[in-house]
């Protein structure tokens, strides 16, 4: 909704120019509109993550940038060159796919060199580039194996290598870690981050995993229904989501939402839900508030648990369900007649039905318009 107008490069990572620029891009499959007049500028060397639920158009956008899908309207610039009509190979991109997409009949070495052989590079140049990629990714011992003889993590490393040898300016990742188990995913996530630091390439990374997005990105573009909802640094998106969708999509366990009303009494604004009255003196409104229905959101980890009454808002409630998760525990309560969760360190896990005190500062909360879902 914002980000629909032209978004200026805000240069969050030592940018010295625009690497990828998408201007008024639309894509329709028949009557279905997948991307709607989308604008996105990616700075040189920036790591940008396209985040959203399945079907939000994030992979489609990536395929458009790669040139694997023809756009319906708009233009795509890579390194200042209009590539809207260019073939994928002429765009200066390398791409890593979710299913690795390694050629099964070729050895790792042949997989890496395929694109270079098609382009007709000299033999010694090919060998040099493969040696470099293999060294960076530590896959030298695997060069003469076939993909079937590799583990999932090794395959994905080879797939990254295939993008690496192309010596391109822009890397495109299409959910590269989704097929791996949790442990490998965490390892490769760090490796991709290190790789980005080493190569300083522009990287555009598609995922539905918010942890990957938060840990990897310089900026995250949260997408829904073919529209970028919010484009910002991870911390900004996490702490100041522009609408209820973004607030609910990021964060695990999810943000608490309370339905209620905004009311003004003696010049002070309050959020009221049944017997709960939350004073909003510390909340920074985006625009002047008006009385009416609203949604109050606060993350479970921003709620203090049994820690005195010094908080702008404090209440007591009885514990309904306790979910221990190892490092910490999620406590379910009722606040204003609605579900409310609090994140508690494992040592302080309460018992069921125990009466506990909670408190928080509305400064850390988010208020949304009940009708539009936009931040207030």
């Amino acid at each position, binding site marked *: 909704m914002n980000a629909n107008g032209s978004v200026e490069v805000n240069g969050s990572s030592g940018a010295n120019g625009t690497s990828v620029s998408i201007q008024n891009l639309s894509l329709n499959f028949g009557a279905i509109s997948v991307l709607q007049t989308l604008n996105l500028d990616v700075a040189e060397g920036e790591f940008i993550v396209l985040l959203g639920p399945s079907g939000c158009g994030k992979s489609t956008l990536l395929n458009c940038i790669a040139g694997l899908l023809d756009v319906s309207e708009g233009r795509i610039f890579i390194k200042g060159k209009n590539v809207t009509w260019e073939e994928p*190979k002429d765009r200066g991109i390398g791409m890593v796919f979710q299913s690795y997409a390694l050629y*099964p009949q070729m050895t790792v070495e042949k997989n890496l060199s395929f694109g270079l052989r098609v382009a007709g590079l000299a033999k010694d140049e090919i060998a040099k580039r493969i040696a470099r990629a293999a060294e960076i990714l530590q896959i030298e011992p695997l060069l003469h194996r076939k993909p079937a003889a590799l583990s999932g993590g090794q395959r994905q490393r080879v797939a990254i290598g295939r993008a690496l040898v192309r010596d391109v300016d822009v890397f495109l990742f299409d959910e590269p870690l989704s097929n791996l188990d949790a442990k490998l995913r965490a390892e490769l996530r760090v490796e991709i981050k290190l790789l980005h630091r080493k190569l300083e390439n522009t990287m555009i990374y598609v995922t539905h995993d918010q942890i990957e997005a938060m840990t990897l990105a310089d900026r995250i573009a949260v997408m829904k229904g073919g529209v970028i909802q919010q484009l910002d640094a991870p911390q900004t998106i996490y702490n100041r989501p522009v609408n209820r969708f973004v607030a609910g999509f990021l964060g695990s366990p999810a943000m608490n939402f309370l339905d209620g009303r905004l009311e003004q009494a003696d010049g002070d604004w309050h959020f009221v839900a049944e017997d709960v009255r939350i004073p909003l003196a510390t909340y920074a409104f985006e625009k002047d508030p008006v009385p009416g229905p609203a949604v109050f959101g606060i993350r479970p980890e921003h709620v203090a648990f049994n820690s005195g009454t010094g908080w702008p808002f404090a209440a007591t409630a009885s514990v309904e369900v306790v979910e221990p998760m190892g490092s910490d525990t999620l406590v379910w309560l009722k606040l204003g007649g609605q579900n409310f969760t609090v994140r508690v360190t494992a040592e302080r896990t309460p018992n069921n039905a125990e009466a506990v005190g909670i408190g928080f500062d509305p400064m850390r909360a988010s208020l949304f318009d009940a009708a539009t879902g936009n931040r207030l």
Partner: protein
Amino acid sequence: MSDHVVSLPAIGGAGGLEAYGPSGPKPRHTFSRRNIFLYGTLIVVALYYLLPLYVMVVTSLKGMPEIRLGNIFSPPMEITFEPWVKAWSSACTGLNCDGLSRGFWNSVRITIPSVILSIALASVNGYALANWRFKGADTFFIILIVGAFIPYQVMIYPIVIILREVGLYGSLSGLVIVHSIFGMPILTLLFRNYFTSMPEELFRAARVDGAGFWGIYFRIMLPMSLPIFVVAIILQVTGIWNDFLFGVVYTRPDTYPMTVQLNNIVNSVQGVKEYNVNMAATILTGLVPLIVYFLSGKLFVRGIAAGAVKG
């Protein structure tokens, strides 16, 4: 948790293991009722199908006097290979009396180019339909598939006229073209489904790597599709070798394929019916498809299954 704890006795201890019920693999009996039914049925069905073949082989090895005795199931008293030699090299078919050998080489000259041409065309067709979704691809595909359901007989006469007009009527190349065209619908369907079952991302990766239409076909798709090629080769070799209708319509007596010659030998109305020669000629004609099946049966099943599961 504690309500079903069983204290296990030491093995070989008092009471023995049998006191605790079954343990380890379940014993299987060779002559169980299930096995008797299963193998009994299989044996009966196999005999039912093999009996005619047995009669053919036995008869082809007998002389005519022995055949006239009428014991078709009895093994030959005196084995003779004369009927086989006659069927191959001197049986009369119409005007020629040089046996099936002429037809055999005609069939080889028809089958090999037809198989290669039809598979080459159909695989490229299927690849284009599966991976390069050009405008009107679906319409084209539907038209092609409808072609598979039109009876051949409807098209025989128009094709005779077309071949006559382009001057190919009666020649082997004319028949090769006819076979290639009629193999197209089913083979294209086969290849299209196989290529569709391949991961789309592989094709995309190859495009990012810069390979074009033919580059992807020859370097990525072909090496991955051996099973479906084997299936197509078997279908085409047996189909074209066994064809009678097109052979008899589109060729002349000196270019008749083996099947047409066989028919002329067996169905001759003049002279004595030489059953032993007829049997030998039939086995000779059926030998090529039979060998193809024996050599590639395993690959065939694997290819069909692969297409079925993924397609």
